[in-house]
């Protein structure tokens, strides 16, 4: 079976949507609204890259939406206290890394299942924030929006930052030994340990990286508006995990690549604006997104089935 089936099919679906938009609603392609649309999605793309790595390492992180909210509010407060932008960025990344490290500590060191750990931290961060802020927005200083640049420049900076992150992570997973270790740990923890890899360290660092990326995404998020909503990041975890799944990341770990995840992300991100521009009722958005995810999982399932029957030399039949 072709190794790039997933990339090709997702790219085809994406191409079809873009083509439909080009034919029936070319208003979609007006530069400024399109740039705004893309900018709005950039933070989620960064988070999606992180979650893809977490899933490749055979873990899951559903606390990222809450992490995003905490990082957004905290960095907003720092910015409101007139910290310089550079320090705000570093603080955001550091805070995210810290939150990720807490997840990592429970999952990697105490060996608790990540779904439960991050469910707990998801609720804890979200509720603590709600209690602390009582729903109040953070007003940001004037100079912060769009990094103090013109809107277009600010938007371009955000989009390019997100693409650079994607690009660097995509290259690292492919060309760095560290990336290979993530795949090894996700495929078979015990085999990885026996090969001298330290699976707990790898898992811990993946969660720390996840948090750091969330912190960066939070910064790129808050500079887009004059206020920080303490409810930001709600539902982000589902969006990111869905994009990773559509991009072919195996929920059972060890498989997936960030380029395909990027395509999956674009496909899901397109659905809602496409519906609006094609004047289809927006109620359909979630149903269509759900159908895409289901199709992706179905494709994985079918691939596994055919693999079982078309390779007689897989272990199950090998000793014949």
């Amino acid at each position, binding site marked *: 079976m072709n190794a790039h089936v997933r990339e090709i099919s997702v790219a085809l679906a994406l191409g079809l949507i873009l083509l439909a938009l080009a034919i029936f609603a070319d208003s979609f392609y007006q530069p400024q609204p399109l740039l705004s649309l893309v900018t709005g999605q950039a933070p989620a793309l960064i988070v999606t890259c992180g979650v893809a790595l977490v899933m490749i390492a055979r873990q899951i992180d559903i606390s990222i939406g809450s992490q995003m909210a905490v990082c957004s509010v905290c960095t907003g407060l720092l910015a409101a206290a007139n910290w310089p932008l550079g320090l705000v960025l570093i603080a955001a990344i550091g805070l995210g890394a810290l939150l990720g490290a807490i997840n990592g500590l429970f999952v990697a060191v105490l060996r608790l299942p990540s779904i439960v750990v991050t469910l707990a931290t998801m609720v804890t961060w979200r509720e603590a924030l709600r209690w602390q802020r009582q729903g109040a927005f953070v007003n940001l200083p004037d100079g912060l929006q769009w990094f103090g640049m013109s809107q277009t420049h600010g938007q371009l900076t955000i989009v390019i930052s997100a693409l650079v992150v994607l690009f660097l992570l995509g290259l690292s997973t*492919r*060309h*760095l*030994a*560290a990336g*290979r*270790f993530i*795949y*090894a740990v996700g*495929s*078979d923890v*015990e*085999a*990885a*340990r*026996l*090969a*001298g*890899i*330290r699976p707990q360290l790898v898992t811990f660092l993946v969660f720390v990286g996840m948090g750091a990326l969330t912190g960066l995404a939070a910064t790129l998020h808050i500079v887009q508006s004059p206020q920080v909503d303490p409810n930001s990041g709600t539902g982000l975890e589902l969006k990111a995990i869905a994009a990773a799944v559509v991009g072919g990341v195996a929920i059972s770990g*060890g*498989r997936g690549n960030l380029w395909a995840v990027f395509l999956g992300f674009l496909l899901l991100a397109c659905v809602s604006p496409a519906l609006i521009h094609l004047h289809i009722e927006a109620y359909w958005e979630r149903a269509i997104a759900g159908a895409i995810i289901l199709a992706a999982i179905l494709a994985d399932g079918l691939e596994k089935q055919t693999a079982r*029957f*078309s*390779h*007689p*030399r*897989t*272990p199950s*039949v*090998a*000793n*014949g």
Partner: protein
Amino acid sequence: MSDPCRSAPLLQLAGVHKSFGAVRALKGVSFELFGGEVHALVGENGAGKSTLVKLVTGALRPDAGEIEIMGNRVAHLNPARAHKLGVTCIYQQPALFADLTVAENLWLRLEAPGALGRVDWSACRRRAGQWLERIGAAISPDSEIRHLSMPEQQLVEIACALGTGARIVIMDEPTASLTQKEQHLLFSVVRNLRQNGAGILYISHRLEEVFTVADRVTVLRDGQSVGTNRMEELTKAALIRSMVGREVSDTAPPCGGAARDLVLALRHLGCSASGVRDVNLEVRSGEVVGLAGLVGAGWTELARVLFGITPADSGELQLNGRAVSISSPRDAIDRRIAYLPEDRRRHGVILDMSLAQNITLAIHRRLFPRGWLRPRAERQLAGDSLRALNVKAGGPDALAASLSGGNQQKVALARWLATQPELLILDEPTQGVDIGTKREIHRRIRDLANQGVAVLLISSDLPEVLDVSDRICVMRNGTMVATLPPKTGAHTVMAYALGQKGAAV
């Protein structure tokens, strides 16, 4: 025993074909199994044995040809139907539910719920106890499967098969994880079944067993039946010849020359967590030391201590004359120890990764000192080692999952040879591997020793340990009870392993 061939066969296959895509696994095989006989099925890996078994158990359907069970032609066999017709199979890897108890597992296989779906657990436990007793297994019906060792699980499987009262019993490598003692249990079960008129289809790579237990043997080669003979008409050499289709020396390469420097020395080494205690052992460069004993005697546990998986907590471990502590596999690899684990399917190779990635996994820091992968260097190194070990595969980029078991084992070995170890620990290196590959691996072990590697060989296949080792160390209850010279007889080794002879270290 009456001549079984006069009665009608229990199982008959006529001209059966089966293909998987382009691979023709069976090319017109005909085969007969009579009641009251043990019929061995032998052949190299990939000869079609497992496919044939799957046709009989209904897991696969033949493309052409006929299957008759008890004289009835069965066209659409499925596992449930085969079960009903009295076919049962004991697989190489026990297929039991790990979190359920022995009794619950037996119930799931053998019984149906009563009125309103009620289960009479006390009766069920009693029956489970009876079945276990009948095969002489000392296992409580209340133990959870995951607390049982592999051989114990295998015995539960066998009890299951007996409980079904099946007329056709298929045993696929039933002794792969059994030691001598459990093997004898198994053989007596087999003879018992035969006496009661069941037909036993016995599949094994271990020819000694086939000669011990079988009445007739059918040899499969490349999906075709080469012939069926009564055991007494055959010699071992003739059987191997017909399996392989060429001459293969049945004996391991001769033991090497003088051993050199002391590589590994253990003084009163122990690890309370894994039950290893007071082990004294020396392994020299250029020497193959075999570890023998009953399964559960602590050999794998000892290997895991040496490799830092469960670090030692008492005694001393010396490498090249210096006392060291090894607290993780990483430590062990840095000190040039390599460990080929038991159970390659789970931990030997990573199935989702390519062969090249598998082979370089333990040498990343040497091959990629800056952390950047170098695909060309990686593929070249992998290609060389695949050639050196004669791995049959599409090349370094093939996925490990696409290889047969024997070839996966070679890839696992290649990974550890790539680390250029000083001490190589091999845990069941030839389990489930065909005889040709087995000899290749034995030759390779000897080559390595000749190149100065100290080899510690662990195997439940006693003839293998006796053949390949320069010295044999016998373990019992987590400690070393004897060190014996090469060419020691099997019965002497077993006497120490069973505790009939005292310690003689």
